[in-house]
């Protein structure tokens, strides 16, 4: 059974008198343990799709099952519980609370689980150590670099041990070197068995995932199975290096012309 199952999801934004159709009959299935990227140009609805996945935003029609549970009509309380325990978020703009230290930011999701301060801070220190920022735990976000902020945000997303990490342009505000480190970190998380969904418009970022979902004008353009059906999946025990050869095979199988151009810089960088 898939962890995430979207069937014929539609979403509209009201813009004045008109309704903007941002998601059109989107069907997505993501299995537990997958690492998937959602690609598309700006305005393609990729962030909206991720927000729907994260129960941060509502949808107008269709069916969304998260681990078999229908998400529609979920009470605010239950939605908050899902966001807290099941899902971890990583945002392009980090969304750290500026007045809290790195440690307090990481510990914050546990506050909403009613866990004691001592235990929260102990766990937060462990997760900061995992992302290599233990010595920065007493610093506020303004004193951290972009990459450090994103690592704090990733530590925060992991602290509740979620089953699904949703990353919205996690490297969008970072330089390529730092982007690389962040993607390494996400790949590592994936290797630990957590399902990871990354929204990006950068092909080299998408190339490091197992599968690319392309959105165009709110529709699934192609389900470019970048790695999954090919024999390389068996070798995907080490996720970070393996996706690099696979896009070349996927482009050969995919028919769309847009996909053929995009993975090429990714493969260049990998090679």
């Amino acid at each position, binding site marked *: 059974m898939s962890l995430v199952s979207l069937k014929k999801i539609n979403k509209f934004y009201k813009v004045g008198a008109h309704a903007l159709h941002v998601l059109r009959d989107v069907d997505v299935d993501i299995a537990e343990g997958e690492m998937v990227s959602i690609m598309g140009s700006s305005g393609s609805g990729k962030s909206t799709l991720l927000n729907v996945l994260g129960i*941060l935003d509502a949808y107008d029609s269709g069916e969304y099952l998260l681990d078999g549970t229908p998400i529609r009509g979920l009470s605010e*309380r239950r939605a908050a519980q899902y*966001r807290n325990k099941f899902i971890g978020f990583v945002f392009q703009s980090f*969304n750290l609370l500026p007045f809290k230290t790195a440690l307090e930011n990481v510990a914050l999701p546990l506050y909403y689980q009613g866990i004691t301060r001592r235990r929260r801070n102990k766990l937060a220190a462990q997760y900061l150590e995992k992302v290599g920022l233990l010595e920065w735990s007493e610093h506020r976000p303004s004193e951290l670099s972009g990459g450090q902020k994103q690592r704090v945000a990733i530590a925060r997303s992991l602290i509740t041990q979620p089953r699904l990490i949703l990353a919205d342009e996690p490297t969008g505000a970072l330089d390529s070197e730092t982007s690389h480190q962040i993607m390494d970190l996400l790949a590592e998380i994936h290797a630990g068995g957590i399902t990871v969904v990354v929204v990006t418009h950068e092909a080299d970022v998408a190339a490091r995932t197992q599968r690319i979902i392309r959105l165009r004008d709110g529709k699934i353009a192609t389900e470019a199975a970048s790695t999954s059906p090919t024999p390389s999946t068996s070798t995907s025990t080490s996720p970070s290096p393996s996706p690099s050869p696979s896009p070349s095979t996927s482009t050969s199988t995919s028919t769309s012309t847009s996909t053929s151009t995009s993975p090429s810089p990714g493969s260049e960088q990998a090679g």
Partner: protein
Amino acid sequence: MFSLDRWQEILGTLWRNKLRSALTALSMAWGIFMLVVLLGLGNGLQAGVEHGFADDATNSIWLFAGQTSRPHKGLPIGRRVVLANRDVGKVDALPAVDHITGRYFARGGMFGGEITIRAGAKAQPFDVRAVHPGHLYLEKTLMKAGRYLNDTDVAERRKVVVIGLPVAAFLFGPANAIGRWVEINKVAFQVVGLFDDEGGEGEQKKAYIPITTAQAAFNGADRVNMLMFTVGNAGVAESKAIAAEATALLAEAHDFSPDDPQALRVRNNVENFQTFMQIFSMIDLVMGLMGVLAIVAGVIGVSNIMMIVVRERTKEIGIRKALGATPANIVGSIVQEAVVLTASAGYLGLVAGVGLLQLIERALPPNEMFGPPRVDLGIALGATVVLVVAGALAGFFPALAAARVNPIVALRDE
């Protein structure tokens, strides 16, 4: 609900927004402060008036003999009306009259003047009142030692005097004054009683002698300048009727028109007291209203700032929601913040207001204009509770709206 964590979050937020918190607290504290001070001052003014009345019977009517200003039965105007001891008896015979006294102004003028009282080497002018025994009730004289004047004193023109505690202290020091002799206008009087009076030192520095003794000593024949009597618990209308009845009685006896306002001047204390009380309950009302308006201004200030707070924190609310905060978490913390802020500020305003009133009370001893400016603490606490609830509501509705917004909308807020 009241976890240490929550408190740390709230105090942290308040501390981060020091200026905003201070302004909210100020508008709140000011409202309560104004309410307390205004109510206190209103009470002080009222207490002052009540104090002014406290030393006299408020259910009394005073009649002053004057000059005729209207022709009556062919008699000209400008005739002096001269009351006599027998008039006191006539008025006393009226069923509505309770206690009665005449007053003879030994030194002429209004209420007479001061007369030197001497005891050995000590001498000083005091106000000596020539009265009937009923004066005890009209002046609310409080006997401390010995006795007041009695009917025998009046009938036999005894040379006895009742003196106030300060007078006794001046003349005799701490020694017992009862039975001692004093000279009043070079006539020896024996002290038979010591009194106190709630009207303050002015009312205590007096001496009372029988009216008949004074009339004899000061060539007064049987003249009475003034009549005072109480009317039980008669209302304003009743008291006016009684005054008219007494006036008619005296008009008949002394041949002046009962409608002549100058021949016999009437001071109806029942009416005066009620008028004063009405004025001061109006002043109280106005003061209270101003206080309430100050509170309303405080509520508006608090509401405004809480709305800004929620607006300012939309993004933070979005982040917290994405991390798993329920709407109850969000609303609870904002409302609690508002309550903590308004309650502590209200308390400060309350303390400051009561403090100022106590300073005023210390600086201004009770007098005829102004009594102790006390405030009903229940009202002040009630007003604080109103402000706290208003602050909570002011935080509650915007917080509820913010907590219900899709987290992504809140997150987008920059």
